[in-house]
């Protein structure tokens, strides 16, 4: 018989506990369950294992994932994680805590969420941030519902075709069931089209639009005129942003946006095959009551000391139930702590350097790739930061296979048939040169 490190009860404990309850066996505790519902078979599971065996099993699984140098973004970015971030996250007072409903013994969680909200506001220029969402695409889908809630009696939300494919997919999925009409704004020359936006607004019924700050081609969008066009029609502008890049780029507030959403993964969170990440969502003060999710606020305790609580809860699903405009209950609290510590470590200077190094590395790779003659520009004059696309003049499939063999993940094929690249501050000139040399070879 195996031992189970997480089950404390001895035979004697069980006997005494059953006696107190007044039943004679463990089975009696299930007397209210119809007998044929009691599972009498054997689970199709392996036998219980020791920790050592479990570790060995995962070592074997891990060995099936070859280590690659990542030169792809498309919603997940290989930025450097300072050691202290996961170290502090592993403190069990953070890790094993529940949602901070008992505020008197959750001031640690509540304080870091307040810090997180402050940092998201500072990055986006918005007035109010919630305590975080699942990930970027679901935050964008929440922005869709929030737009509907802000603009009374309108049911169409516009989404730029320049948003990342998974962002569009998730918005469309949420919209289909919520009953929202989604119309797509065209992209011209690598830039979301203001003319297309205006034409769609002219058709009426538009509650809001979701456009990228940096689009799927890596291009930094110029959103001049977007907010005005939407506001004139009583609609809101939601901007989907890379929060790492927001440390240097024009903020959603500066573009006149009403809502800012995006994925916090680029703030040093390991890619971890896509999750966990953290979505962020912030807005202007006038829309605060429509913002979904938890929010932490500052107040004072009975003796006047600064204290933090979950606040504005009347917006939330557990109170509004079927009248809710979002069903989100939890947040991605530990990952919000992750980005809070990351941003504290990096500070304004570190964030500027991350962006400068990513930009320099990406532009270097871009130029070197053009020199190989294996690619040509798609959007020659458009500004990009760490991510870009090129038109391949070679067969991408065989190139991808060759790169994987040599330990690189790069040149992923987009829906349009372009090759997408990304360079973060983690990639050195030597690594970039090695990648380019392999491409040159074949």
């Amino acid at each position: 018989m195996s031992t189970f490190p997480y089950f404390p009860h001895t035979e004697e404990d069980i006997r005494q506990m059953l006696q107190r309850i007044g039943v004679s066996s463990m089975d009696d505790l299930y007397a209210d369950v119809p007998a044929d519902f009691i599972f009498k078979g054997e689970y199709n599971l392996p036998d219980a294992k020791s920790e050592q065996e479990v570790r060995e099993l995962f070592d074997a699984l891990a060995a099936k994932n070859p280590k690659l140098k990542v030169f792809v973004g498309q919603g997940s970015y290989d930025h450097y994680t300072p050691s202290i971030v996961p170290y502090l996250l592993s403190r069990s007072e953070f890790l094993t805590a529940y949602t901070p409903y008992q505020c008197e013994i959750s001031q640690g969680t509540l304080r870091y969420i307040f810090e997180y909200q402050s940092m998201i506001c500072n990055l986006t220029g918005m007035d109010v941030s919630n305590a975080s969402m699942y990930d970027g695409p679901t935050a964008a889908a929440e922005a869709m519902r929030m737009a509907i809630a802000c603009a009374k009696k309108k049911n169409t939300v516009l989404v730029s075709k320049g948003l990342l494919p998974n962002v569009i997919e998730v918005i469309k999925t949420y919209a289909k069931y919520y009953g929202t009409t989604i119309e797509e704004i065209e992209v011209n020359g690598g830039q979301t089209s203001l003319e297309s936006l205006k034409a769609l607004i002219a058709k009426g019924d538009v509650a809001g639009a979701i456009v990228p700050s940096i689009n799927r081609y890596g291009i930094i969008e110029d959103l001049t005129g977007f907010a005005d066009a939407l506001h004139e029609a009583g609609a809101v502008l939601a901007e989907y942003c890379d929060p790492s890049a927001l440390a240097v780029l024009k903020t959603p507030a500066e573009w006149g946006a009403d809502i800012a959403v995006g994925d916090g993964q680029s703030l040093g969170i390991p890619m971890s095959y896509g999750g966990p990440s953290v979505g962020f969502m912030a807005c202007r003060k006038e829309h605060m009551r429509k913002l979904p999710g938890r929010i932490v606020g500052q107040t004072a305790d009975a003796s006047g000391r600064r204290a933090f609580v979950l606040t504005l809860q009347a917006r939330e699903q557990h109170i509004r139930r079927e009248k809710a405009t979002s069903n989100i209950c939890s947040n991605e609290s530990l990952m919000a702590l992750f980005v809070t510590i990351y941003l504290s470590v990096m500070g304004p200077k570190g964030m500027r350097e991350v962006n400068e190094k990513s930009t320099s590395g990406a532009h270097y790779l871009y130029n070197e790739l053009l020199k190989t003659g294996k690619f040509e520009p798609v959007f020659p004059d458009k500004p990009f930061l760490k991510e870009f696309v090129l038109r391949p003049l070679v067969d991408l499939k065989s190139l991808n296979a060759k790169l994987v063999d040599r330990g690189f993940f790069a040149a992923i094929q987009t829906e349009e048939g372009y090759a997408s690249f990304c360079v973060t501050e983690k990639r050195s000139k030597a690594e970039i040169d090695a990648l380019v040399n392999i491409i040159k070879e074949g």
Partner: protein
Amino acid sequence: MKYYDKLIFELSKPGRAAFTLPDNGCPAAALPADLMRAEPAILPEVTEVDVARHYTALSQMNFGVDTGFYPLGSCTMKYNPKINEEIAAMPAFQGLHPLQPAETVQGALEVYYEMDKALATITGMKRFTLNPCAGAHGELTGLMVIRSYHLSRGDFARTKIIVPDSAHGTNPASAAVCGLEIVEVKSGANGLVDVESLKPLLGPDIAGIMMTNPNTLGLFEKDIREIAELVHGCGGLLYYDGANMNPLLGMVRPGDMGFDVMHINLHKTFSTPHGGGGPGSGPVGVCEKLVDFLPTPRVEKQADGKFTVVRSVAGAAGQVSAFMGNFGVILRAYAYILMLGKQGIKLAGKYATLAANYIKESLKDAYKLPIPSVCKHEFVYDGLIDDGSATGKPGATTLDVAKRLLDYGYHAPTIYFPLLFHQALMIEPTETESKETLDEFIEVMHKIAKEAAEDPDILHGAPHLAPISRPDETAAARNPILKFE
């Protein structure tokens, strides 16, 4: 725990830094000035020492499962094994980009595939998606599957979903954002869904029913077979809210009870840490006829034994998260399942039920027990028997009891939920707490009841020993201060 009043911004001093970055050796490249922000974002300028001390101080104002007993009803605060953390932190998993070619992530895909199979055998469902990031996210996904099924059959009239009045608040909210109209079914005096009240609600407009079994009172819905027959009989489907699955682990499978769709919370039943409110994971399982409607992307095993990712399937509910859910959480839960194995899984639910009934019987002399029958993983008291109002002072409420527990080193139970009772105090001990821990808790609860009877003011002022006393929540909501300025 001791009070600490700083925010990281207040430690900031211009010129300090905690980061180091290598020179990448590439020539500088400029971006157009008109696309850049006017002012740098205000972020702290601190050293690594400041960061370490500050967040350690914050952690010391927090209570976790490793700090002490967490009898929080409906939340299943079981112990979080440490091996799980090591597995999730392995570089060979953390370093994987979600769009890498399948042949370079075979180990990760195998985890998805095996986890799907493990959940299927544990719950009696056919197939799972691991893409939803939380329980409520799973509810929404499961309801999308239900709607997709009806729509695929041209059954457009099924726009209503039945939700019991005892349901978690997320149930009606998830249904509403899935475009369904909510029809509430009442509980009977025994706390269970009343079959006679259900019958008149059924018809061709019913998409299904959302059930939590055991329900939020910790009671097994013993009429579930009849309910399943009735709902299926009218063409509806049964949704199982797996938030309360823990007592059934190893004992009863939702699939065998007639449920068509379910979600399960890996952060409850499968021991992954709550992290102060996430990240969680809410896989959704379905019966055979609904497999085609599960969301994408999906992991499939090919004939050659290799795993592949299918990104789009006609008729599928769509895509519900950025990639394939919270892989790091899935890894932890899979490690837990492997540790317990087929033997251990059979014990967890029983032990959880034993612990809950033990507390329930031990405190009913001091706390009102509205429903005395055998419970599952949790149960609900309706406040104190003697609240001390005989002293002439205002009586002690459930809130007061909860706050007083903090002074004694416990987390509070869930309070004022479910809404069926005015002074609800919902206790869920889980299987990982020893008899000694439970006995000490019982003793403290008796002590608090005695304090309440003799001098309820002791409770009104609680907590006395936490880092802060009760904060002014009204002021927080009337004049929201939501960021540091």
